[in-house]
């Protein structure tokens, strides 16, 4: 019997289970940093004078990055209920709080969609009617790739996501008070259809936001690729948040090395899954060598971007997969949290690799706006998430499977 087990005979006291006044501080920090960074980025983007092309690519990067994290969190919540998982109960509330960022992401989405509706062609090629008129391939898909339908689809996706995240979180928080098991059953029954809705909206959002940057190109697995990155991100973020919370004295008796071990296992498994999806996409297109499909990979293989591709393979897959294989790494919270930070950085790099060659096919171009937009969007999302869930308990204290989750031991 581990010493941890004997310690958890009593739980964390209630004050160690909320953010308390820290929530307000973090909210303020998030909003301030977020708005300032975004404003600077916007001004900079205008100053470059390329019709905001560079800015919108950076903005898209930041938007899809934080969207993927929120989607990962939503996936975590839904799958947890769907399979009635035990170990993941301790983290579920944290994931629910992260899904509270959807309204903020909705606002950020407007920052993308409204300029397109207003006639901006800076981001997507298919928004430019002159280009479309002379391009047979774009003409043929015009009924899908047009600004109004794009906006409608975004609204639908966000409606689904916001509704789902609110539904799950509201009842989860309600259970804190009532301890009603029927709520868990309800959520379990809903999670089936919810997963279907999640899969369709996430995949199509991936097609719309990222795949249409190269509108001549198509790949059926692209939605799954976006999802894979999202799934890695959530487990990494949970590891980081747990570590930070425990460092601040919260949830020390709730989360054990066993839980970190499982977070690490899931993050590692999804890293392998991501590599599998990325590899299938690449290898199939490369092997068949059909020009209309290889347009995506040509810049990523034959220009300066080939170094970025190599970095992605080695540092987004090989290094973390081998590095996080050992159980000693996974059971050591600070080490795992460090790897988690690393993976989140590489995830941003992955999206950078997907997006930027559409802007600059021949050369890798970093720009401070990328970082500014990322920090900006991050701050705004932090503000948004804490606005929704800053005051709730960090633990689903009356979840029927909580006890088993806390006592859970890996083999």
């Amino acid at each position, binding site marked *: 019997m581990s010493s941890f087990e004997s310690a958890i005979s009593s739980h964390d006291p209630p004050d160690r289970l909320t953010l308390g006044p820290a929530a307000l501080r973090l909210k303020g920090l998030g909003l301030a940093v977020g708005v300032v960074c975004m404003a600077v980025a916007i001004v900079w983007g205008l100053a470059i004078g390329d019709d905001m092309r560079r800015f919108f690519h950076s903005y898209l990067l930041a938007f899809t990055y934080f969207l993927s994290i929120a989607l990962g969190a939503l996936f975590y919540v839904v799958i947890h209920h769907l399979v009635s998982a035990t170990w993941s109960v301790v983290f579920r509330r944290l994931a629910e709080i992260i899904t509270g960022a959807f309204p903020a992401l909705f606002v950020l989405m407007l920052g993308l969609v409204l300029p397109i509706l207003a006639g901006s062609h800076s981001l997507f090629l298919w928004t430019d009617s002159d280009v479309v008129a002379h391009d047979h391939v774009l003409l043929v898909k015009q009924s899908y790739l047009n600004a109004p339908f794009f906006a409608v689809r975004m609204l639908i996706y966000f409606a689904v996501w916001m509704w789902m995240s609110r539904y799950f979180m509201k009842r989860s928080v309600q259970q804190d008070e009532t301890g009603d098991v029927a709520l868990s059953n309800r959520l379990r029954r809903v999670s089936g259809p919810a997963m279907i809705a999640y899969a369709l909206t996430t995949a199509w959002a991936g097609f719309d936001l990222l795949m249409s940057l190269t509108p001549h190109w198509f790949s059926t697995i692209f939605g799954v690729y976006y999802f894979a990155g999202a799934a890695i991100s959530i487990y990494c973020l949970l590891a980081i948040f747990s570590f930070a919370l425990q460092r601040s004295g919260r949830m020390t008796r709730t989360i054990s090395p066993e839980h970190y071990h499982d977070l690490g296992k899931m993050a590692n498994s999804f890293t392998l899954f991501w590599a599998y999806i990325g590899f299938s996409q*690449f290898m199939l297109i490369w092997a068949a060598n059909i020009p209309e499909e290889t347009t995506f990979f040509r810049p990523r293989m034959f220009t300066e971007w080939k170094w970025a591709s190599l970095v992605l393979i080695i540092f987004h897959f090989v290094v973390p997969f081998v590095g996080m294989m050992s159980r000693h790494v996974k059971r050591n919270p600070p080490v795992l949290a460090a790897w988690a930070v690393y993976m989140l950085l590489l995830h941003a790099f992955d999206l950078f690799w997907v997006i930027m060659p559409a802007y600059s096919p021949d050369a890798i171009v970093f720009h401070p706006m990328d970082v500014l937009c990322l920090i900006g969007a991050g701050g705004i999302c932090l503000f948004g998430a804490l606005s929704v869930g800053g005051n709730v308990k960090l633990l689903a204290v009356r979840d029927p499977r909580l006890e088993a989750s806390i006592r859970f031991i890996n083999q």
Partner: protein
Amino acid sequence: MASDELDNEVTAESDMLLPGSETVFYGLLAEYDSPGALLQAAEQVRDAGYEKWDCHAPYPVHGLDPAMGIRSTILPVLVFAGGITGTATAILMQWWMNARAWQWVASGKPYFSVAQQIPIAFELTVLFSAFTAFWGMWFLNKLPQVWHPLFRKKRFLKASSNGFFISVESQDPSFRRADTEKLLREAGAVAVEEVSYTTSPEQRNVPRPLLGFILLTTVLALVPFAFIAKYRTTHSDKPHFYIVGDMDFQQKRRPQSESDVFADSRADRVGVAGTVARGELKEDDHFYRGLVDGEWATTFPPQLEISERRMREGEERFQIYCTPCHGQAAAGNGMIHQRAMAVGAGATGWVQPLNLVDTTAQLNVVRQPHGQIFNTISNGIRTMPGYKSQIPEMDRWKIVLYLRAIQRSRNASIEDVPPSKRPALR
């Protein structure tokens, strides 16, 4: 106690003491009534400092490893090494076999194409890892070990179903017959028994039938290899076996062979009269034959794009097909003509290739309509062969386009030159 022990022995003829045999005292076997009791007892035995002892259970009891003080096995490390070996083997194999020993050209893919090597590399990694895990585990467990003293005890037969046991070997340095039994009983044993076995020289040897079986199967297993070796190193004059007759004697006719189906006994047939292959109908007279309403076309067909680019393509084709006879300037003094002159063919009836640009010649090609020139290129004229089997229609039209350009250039006046370029002529 003694009668209990007798009842619990598995009866065997070998219990008789034969000459040369000895009784060996193996150790003590204690039974416990539950997994929980086993764990507690194990902890006590571990703490008492015993080393040569073991627990026996029908399933892996949780917590038994720390209760016994078992150290983590080295197996994962071995498996990792095995896996890496698999990866390296796969990559090396594919590189050497496809990129070095015999370079396979396959759809223009690089000989050493990592993307297409990954599936096999992955599979071999898994295969080697699995083999290492499998063989490594049995090896580390020292299995197969079909015989063991504990199997002599009837009570022990429960160990694989419903029984929980601890066995302590007498070889253990801490073993004392009375003290050890006391420890086991106080830890909660339901029963403690002595385990002994007798060995006889016959028992120590491998049983004859088994030996015979191993020998026989080994010999039989070598027979196919012997056959293979024989046939690979000898020659035979006899025809080989035809196992699948259909494969070797096929019901088809080869070109230039006989067929008894047709009256003329030929296997080669002409195409059925009146049939046209798909895409071969070629109804467009203008494009395919240079004719408009039965007359030579005076215009280019609409399929031909009149542009600099097509002109250049026509120039290239002209250089390839026409200049050997007609010359670079289409004046009829190509290299073949020059050679003919040099070897004196003029005296034996050599006809100079036509000058295509001379308006004063008897055959004024400059006056000929586009379609007529096209027809000449396609079907030949006099001693010139037809080129329609070598040059597709579009290319022939491009040659006509280019030829018109040369003709104009050789019969041009100053008015034909754009004003901006006239100073360059001076």
